[in-house]
């Protein structure tokens, strides 16, 4: 390397430091909510640089932002984390004058039970958990109660998540998904204990590959994960259990600690844009909360029952709610007992 070729990049590097710094926004998101062009297009249009961090669970996200100086500006908690995060003082109040497209939300997300005034969150994506089945291996279980049938012994998995496993047990018992009385949790635990010998394992994302490989007859899973499996193995079928199932919505929030709330508002408004939402839905197989977007999706995606259940099916679904502290503690203990059994 001659001295000049070394000198020039060094000089331009120095100039880069002297130039006013680009405006940057730190976005903490689930791994599957950005399409390839989502962030580059935003950066081109606004000149704002986006740093994306991803997480795999609400707990992980909460543990990081709990300190109040995590450095993140925008996050995407599930609906049942909005209340607790608001009570902990972690969420900024949204400035509706800066969110021009809020009225694009579907009716049921315009006044959601967890934040009726949309004061702290914008619901953007939603989905369900249910059963993914392989009709080639065994009769399709149409209800959660079927997953207690010895017919499926060692050929099924449940999610590795106390809310989902006990939720399924509560639906089998015909009780509300969010039942939190000690007697309800104990009853659900007894059912889960009875089911454990029939299970191959408690798995989250790994179940997808086992279903595609034909190693499992059925598994409890999220609709998005199920759709990914179905796209590579079309004979698989996603079932909305007859005895009921869980629904969740992931919502964009601006953290109170953020020093770039105006940029964050700009980003939220961008995610509310129909073409942006359509691209995300089509590429990542997630249902969008924005009305009219379904029309913009490619035909096969728009017709996916997995992502867009009928109104009739939806009536069997229940939204997860936060658990009272005492119930949370009891459920954690029962979950440890279940795993150790």
């Amino acid at each position, binding site marked *: 390397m001659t001295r000049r070729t070394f000198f020039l990049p060094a000089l331009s590097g120095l100039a880069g430091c002297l130039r006013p710094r680009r405006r940057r926004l730190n976005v903490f998101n689930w791994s599957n909510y950005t399409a390839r062009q989502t962030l580059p297009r935003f950066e081109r249009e606004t000149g704002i640089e986006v740093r994306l961090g991803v997480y795999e669970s609400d*707990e992980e996200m*909460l543990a990081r932002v*709990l300190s109040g100086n995590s450095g993140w500006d925008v996050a995407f908690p599930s609906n049942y984390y909005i209340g*607790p995060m608001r009570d902990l003082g972690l969420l900024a109040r949204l400035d509706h004058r800066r969110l021009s497209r809020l009225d694009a939300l579907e009716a049921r997300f315009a006044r959601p039970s967890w934040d009726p005034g949309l004061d702290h969150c914008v619901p953007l994506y939603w989905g369900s958990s249910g059963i993914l089945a392989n009709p080639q291996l065994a009769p399709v279980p149409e209800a959660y109660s079927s997953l207690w049938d010895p017919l499926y012994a060692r050929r099924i998995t449940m999610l590795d998540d106390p809310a989902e496993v006990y939720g399924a047990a509560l639906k089998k018992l015909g009780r509300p998904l969010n039942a939190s009385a000690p007697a309800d949790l104990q009853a659900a635990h007894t059912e889960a204990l009875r089911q454990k010998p029939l*299970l*191959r*394992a*408690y798995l989250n994302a790994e179940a997808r590959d086992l279903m595609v490989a034909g190693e499992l007859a059925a598994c409890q899973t999220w609709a998005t994960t199920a759709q990914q499996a179905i796209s590579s193995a079309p004979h698989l079928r996603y079932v909305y259990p007859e005895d009921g199932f869980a629904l969740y919505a992931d919502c964009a929030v601006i953290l109170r600690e953020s020093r770039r709330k105006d940029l964050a508002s700009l980003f939220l408004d961008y995610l509310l844009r129909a073409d942006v939402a359509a691209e995300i839905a089509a590429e990542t197989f997630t249902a969008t909360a924005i009305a009219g977007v379904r029309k913009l999706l490619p035909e096969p995606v728009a017709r996916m029952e997995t992502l867009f259940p009928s109104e009739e099916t939806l009536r069997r679904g229940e939204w997860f709610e936060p658990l009272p502290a005492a119930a949370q503690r009891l459920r954690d203990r029962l979950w440890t007992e279940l795993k150790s059994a």
Partner: protein
Amino acid sequence: MTGRLRTLALAPAATLLALTVGAPFLILAAYACLSRGVYGGVMPPWTLENWQRLADPLYAGILARSFLVAALSTLLCLLLAFPLALYIARSTRRKNLLLALVMLPFWTSLLVRTWAWMFLLRDTGLVNMLLMKAGLISAPLPLLYNWGAVVLGLVYAHLPFMVLPLYAALERQDPALAEAAADLGAREWQAFWRVTLPLAAPGIRAGVLLTFIPCLGTFLIPDLLGGGRTILVGTFIQNQFTTARDWPFGSAVSLALMAVVLVLLWAEVRRRKEPLL
């Protein structure tokens, strides 16, 4: 070396240890005596409740099972590693190559290697496929998501930690000692049993410590290869800091685990009346 120079040279390591071991230890100790925040974190008042919960047979059972699994894995590691270390120590030409092969797995992340085991052990994995093709079995064997898979994963991951200290101890042994034993009429196995093995004791102790303690605390391997059906103390502690969001209890369990290991080490030192390692 003069006294002042020694202090100066030790200062960076001592500071680093104080910051990375001492401080987190004190934080854990404080957390373990506080109450849980509902959504993670800790809050007042100070309490001993986390320690009282440890007496619950449920948690004692998890601890006991973890010790059993770690002990079994360590024993298997020792049985596999000893002949290998002996072979490498006594081979003349390819010593460095063989040692490099033992270390080779460290070039890849443990996470990736554990996933590789999952692909091997699955129903449609390589092992089951080969056995079925060979006509030895008609249905896939349940190799994954059980205790066998967990122990296999632990042995696989920790084998190098057993081989290296054993090799170091065996390599130092003068081959003339075995020859002398033979001259004095010992058969080969007698020479091994009464000369080679006792002289390798420091290596065995170091290897057992380096294998047993990480086996006890690991959460990645039991979680992935056990399929969430099994719970060991490492997975349990991790769970307290994530899903269960009970940081104080998680801290108390970590400290209890540390205490049990220290007591065992101390008892061993006392028994042998000699310095550790």
